[in-house]
């Protein structure tokens, strides 16, 4: 089996992402995002099974449309599909596509998946409160020197380092 390629120079891949973000600014007048697309997915799903519940409900309604066009026809949803496709393309080209689970040497699959779900849940809460995630707030807002975005970046990194000892067993 062919060996996977080494990763690209992180600074270069960062510059690449920065140029993509710049393109978004220049073409669309907006930046990137990810959590917003997930909010749309949640709202669409919930309204499909319980439309009365979403009808008068601001956090859901904000991501729904009138019913004549799918709420999934949304900029961020298309973008996040693109993210998945782009990741797949790069992984295939670099021979890094590999079904499996990334985890630390001492972690079990079970604990990794439990922590993945738990961490994802917590991030979902944080991203909703902060009106964005690393793509929307950190990258986009960071590049625009937005005060709130830099507060988000600082808070996230500080909390990550402070909470790291709790999960040492999972990653090291």
């Amino acid at each position, binding site marked *: 089996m062919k060996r996977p390629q080494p*990763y*690209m120079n992180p*600074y270069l*891949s960062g*510059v*690449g*992402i*920065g*140029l*993509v*973000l710049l393109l*978004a*600014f*220049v073409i669309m*007048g*907006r*930046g*990137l995002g*990810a*959590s917003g697309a997930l909010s749309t997915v*949640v709202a669409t799903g919930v309204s499909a099974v319980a439309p009365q519940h979403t009808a008068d409900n601001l*956090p859901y309604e904000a991501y729904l449309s009138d019913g004549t066009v799918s709420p999934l026809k949304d900029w961020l949803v*298309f*973008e*996040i599909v*693109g993210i*998945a*496709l782009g*990741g797949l393309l*790069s992984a295939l080209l*670099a021979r890094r596509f*590999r*079904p499996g689970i*990334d*985890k630390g040497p001492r972690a079990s699959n079970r604990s990794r*998946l439990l922590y993945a*779900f*738990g*961490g*994802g*849940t*917590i*991030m*979902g*809460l*944080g991203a909703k409160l902060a009106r964005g995630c690393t793509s929307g707030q950190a*990258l986009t807002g*960071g590049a*625009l*020197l*937005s005060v709130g975005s830099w507060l*988000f970046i600082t*808070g*996230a990194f*500080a*909390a*990550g*380092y402070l909470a790291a000892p709790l*999960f*040492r067993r999972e990653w090291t």
Partner: protein
Amino acid sequence: MSAPFYEFGLFGQEASLLVALAIGVAFGFFLERGGLGNARKLAGQFYLTDLAVLKVMFSAIVTAMLGLFWLSQLGLVDLSRVYLLPTYVAPHSIGGVVFGVGFVMGGLCPGTSCVAASSGRLDGVVLLGGMLFGILLFNEAFPLVRGLYYSTDLGQVTIAQLVGLPYGVLVFAVVVVALGSFVVAERIEARAR
């Protein structure tokens, strides 16, 4: 000047969705190139073994920031038409802290979890599921956090405006901090090896 193109009516909503797809593909491509689709690599940031997250994110921020600044200076982009995210001090700070805890716990963020998932990683898929659940929880609990969510609203404000310094000074400051952090990061990684 006629950029941002969409803001000046150069194309419509349907085309903008294709733009979204293309931009997403490029974004995901470079994320995977830099290895950010690998949770273990990402988590290394917080154990000072692999600082790829810092390098990639900060490089991206500096690139886009400099690009936008200079394109505006040259009159090629109307910076006032680029959407500036509004600042809500408490939600951004607290949300950031909460997000950071989840990040070191899960090892991926929303964008990178998509990359991980499409690279075949089950933990990426599960993490995505967790995020959908977290969003659902937030929506259901919204009446409880509504007050916090809309509090401490400063509106659209840049750091430059907040501290009363010229935009260019802040640009320079961010570049210096970024480069300095890269030097430190290289030292830390060298010692970890």
